[in-house]
């Protein structure tokens, strides 16, 4: 099921502003890859290019190639919808659908695509996804209530549940645990570990312990200065990045362990 | 020569016709047309008349564009239009039949006064804005014994382009050429600034609600307003159906049309006694020939009904217009009888 991703010479622009420059990276299938780096260095921007979500932002564009199991996402004949249905995403800012109940939010990927699903299957899927995101207990009594009435952390978990409900082959998560307490964080990390056996997972995190705990490989991004593009500085086995980074910048960054 | 011909003889045609006859044009005729339509459809249950009171100009245009089979118009087809009508009606062109005659009242709202005498020059001066008060000498001199108040005159005219305006100013231009030097058209002269309102109803209600106001209006709508007696020759003639018919009778036929056409040039400056010269004659315009017999029958039946004694009195009962005179009716019937199938 899961697929590998190879990125070749990727540049990302916001109109004229080069936000991310010259990224080359190979993400293994059935593995967890963590992106770390200072705020504003282009992690989210780069992550979005992996499933063509940057296209939604006016003016944003890429140069280069992203290969999913060898197939270029940016080939002119490729439909971004195909890409996105294989590569799911959880955003940095939780964005549940305000028009839908909690249940419908979880089922959004299924229902919005008009896939037929029996009530019992749907119920099972909702429960499974919400349990996976450690939200089931908190919302099981109010599945019919709007998703916008949840706390920040609950919304974030709802969005995770929504993303895994469609079982994409690759899951991109942009700081999925930023608003979560340690218990939920642990649950999500468990989920990631579970997902890994079948899917390819990429997460952005500011929490270095988390990166160390869950990821197989880590990519460190950095930015040379204001107005400069973000760059991939180092990419390798997580243990190597944290214990014997080859680059000075990486070492500086990971050694100031705060998270 | 055909069945329609007998239709004119008696007031109620014995043979019934069928089909839909469509007309458009003068809004002044609307009330009368409703009456004709209703009366005719009662006699001919198979037939339908539809008439859209879009305005005379629009009606003539639609007629010439073959959009409707007949037009109602406050003016007969002019020479250019007559020529154009030959395209659709064959070499004899269209026929104008005066079917609706209605006097135009000079109506005013001065408390306590129901009638005053005015000559053409005074009327023209008032409407031109030169006489500004009811107690003006020019009015007083013609109305001995009438208590004229010191009240400013508010002239109210039609805001829309209308046949009523055109006939009224035509009278002013003909009968008081020294005072009324403006162009004659359905539009009120732009030079004269005055109150105005849309439609007959509009001017009447504005006049009714404004003391000192004076206007001209289709006589049927005059209501409680005071009315002027208009000087013709040496006498002041009150408005009446007979006086209006009289004015139409003395009108001169227009030259250069086919021989049955009844286009009339009214003599506005007539001195004919008992004639009331401010009168609007509205025509029915038919083709001299139609494509098929069915249409011809229908047109003839309806046209005959409209000018028949019964038709005219039905209209009078509904619209308050003046029935056309016996002589006119005979001429009109003759014209209608000449309508035939195009060869």
């Amino acid at each position: 099921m899961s697929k590998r991703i190879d990125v070749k010479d990727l540049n990302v622009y916001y109109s004229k502003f080069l936000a991310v420059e010259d990224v080359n990276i190979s993400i293994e299938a059935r593995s967890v890859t963590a992106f770390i780096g200072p705020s504003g260095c282009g992690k989210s921007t780069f992550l979005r290019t992996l499933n063509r979500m940057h296209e939604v932002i006016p003016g944003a564009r890429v140069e280069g190639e992203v290969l999913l199991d060898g197939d270029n996402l940016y080939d002119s004949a490729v439909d971004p919808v195909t890409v996105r249905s294989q590569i799911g995403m959880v955003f940095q800012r939780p964005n549940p659908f305000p028009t839908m109940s909690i249940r419908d939010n979880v089922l959004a990927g299924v229902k919005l695509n008009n896939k037929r699903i029996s009530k019992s299957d749907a119920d099972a899927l909702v429960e499974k996804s919400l349990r996976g995101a450690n939200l089931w207990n908190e919302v099981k009594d109010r599945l019919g209530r709007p998703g916008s009435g949840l706390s920040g952390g609950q919304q974030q978990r709802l969005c995770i549940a929504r993303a895994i409900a469609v079982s994409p082959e690759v899951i991109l998560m942009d700081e999925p645990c930023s608003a979560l307490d340690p218990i939920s964080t642990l649950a999500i990390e468990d989920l990631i570990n579970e997902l890994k056996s079948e899917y390819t997972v990429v997460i952005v995190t500011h929490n270095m312990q988390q990166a160390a705990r869950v990821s197989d490989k880590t990519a460190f991004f950095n930015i040379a200065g204001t107005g400069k593009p973000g760059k991939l500085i180092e990419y390798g086995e997580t243990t190597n990045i944290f214990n014997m980074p080859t680059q000075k910048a990486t070492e500086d960054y990971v050694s100031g362990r705060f998270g | 020569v055909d069945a329609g011909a007998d239709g004119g003889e008696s007031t109620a045609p014995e043979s019934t016709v069928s089909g839909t006859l469509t007309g458009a044009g003068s809004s002044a005729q609307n009330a009368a047309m409703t009456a004709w339509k209703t009366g005719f459809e009662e006699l001919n249950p198979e037939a339908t008349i539809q008439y859209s009171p879009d305005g005379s100009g629009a009606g003539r245009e639609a007629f010439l564009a073959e959009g409707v089979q007949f037009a109602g118009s406050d003016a007969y087809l002019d020479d250019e239009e007559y020529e154009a009508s030959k395209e659709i009606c064959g070499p004899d062109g269209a026929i104008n039949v005066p079917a609706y005659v209605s006097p135009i009242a000079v109506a005013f709202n001065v408390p306590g006064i129901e009638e005053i005498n005015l000559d053409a020059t005074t009327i023209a001066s008032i409407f031109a804005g030169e006489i500004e008060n009811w107690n003006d000498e020019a009015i007083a001199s013609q109305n001995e014994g009438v208590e004229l108040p010191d009240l400013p005159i508010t002239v109210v005219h039609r805001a829309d382009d209308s046949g009523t305006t055109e006939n009224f100013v035509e009278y002013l231009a003909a009968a008081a050429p020294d005072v009324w030097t403006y162009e004659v058209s359905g539009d009120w002269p732009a030079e004269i600034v005055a109150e105005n309102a849309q439609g007959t109803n509009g001017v009447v209600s504005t006049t009714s609600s404004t003391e000192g106001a004076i206007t001209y209006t289709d006589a049927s709508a005059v209501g409680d307003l005071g009315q002027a007696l208009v000087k013709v020759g040496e006498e002041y003639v009150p408005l009446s159906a007979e006086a209006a018919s009289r004015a139409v009778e003395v009108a001169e036929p227009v030259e250069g049309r086919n021989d049955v056409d009844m286009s009339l040039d009214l003599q506005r400056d007539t001195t004919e006694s008992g004639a009331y010269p401010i009168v609007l004659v509205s025509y029915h315009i038919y083709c001299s020939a139609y494509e098929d017999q069915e249409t011809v029958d229908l047109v003839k039946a309806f046209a005959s009904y409209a000018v028949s004694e019964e038709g005219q009195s039905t209209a009078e009962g509904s619209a308050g217009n003046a029935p056309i005179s016996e002589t006119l009716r005979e001429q009109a019937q003759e014209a209608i009888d000449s309508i035939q199938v195009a060869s």
Partner: protein
Amino acid sequence: MSTNALKRAGGAGQSGDKIFSGASLAAGCLILAALFSVAVFLIIEALPVFGADPSEITGGEGFFTYIFPIVIGTIIAAAIALLIATPLGIGVALFISHYAPRRFAQGFGYVIDLLAAIPSVVYGAWGYAVLAPQLAIAYDWLARNAGWIPIFEGPASQTGRTMLTAGIVLAVMVLPIITSLSREIFLQTPSLHEEAALAMGATRWEMITMAVLPFARPGIISAAMLGLGRALGETMAVALVLSGGGLTASLIQSGNQTIAAEIALNFPEAYGLRLAELIAAGLVLFVITLAVNVIARWIISRHKEFSGAN
């Protein structure tokens, strides 16, 4: 390259996308074609005017002399309508979205929307029979006390059926358009931004100027433009209310005319060149509408980056 699995994977749902985008493109083209043909129709019908001898045009001095005063009249009427209706409409919309007790707000919105339910003939009849006589008294007072201001120069109309009255009637007709659209947009202001303002200690009004109005700006301008369109194009109400005439500066005397009313009043009896004149007048109205809209779009686009679409 042809082995790219992503290319063929799409298949199934893609036709839906194609149909929908095709349909919306087709709708766009259809509208374009329709509106374009309206414009072409107008231009063709109006052409005779531009070839005609000036003396044949109403007024006898050419089309420009004929149309100029009416253009000014149209602009005056629309300007009065918008000057009154825009602030009032925004105020009412704010009242419904941010001031009225939540329980009643919907109902109030419904009540104001009723203004849009009233047909223009009725506005005309109301303006003529009810509003004008009331205003006539006020005009009289204005003429006596503020007559030195050119727009209030006397003698005031006795019937009250003046440009100002027509402008007020138009304002009332335009009001629901501006209110209804602005209200919907105000209601959509992200509560995040409202909260941001309030948390800084902003008063309700400050919150509105900080979060709501900037967010709604393009929408308000569009609403005003729709209102303007209505004000410019309204025929019946003006035709019934206004006792028109030549150009005057005074808004409380009879006089002035609007293009739409001029067309409505003269159309039934018009044919030939006169009809072409009236249609050419309609064309002029397009030019006015266009000019104002271009300015409005320009204002919106200047702030595009700050529209907060994200």
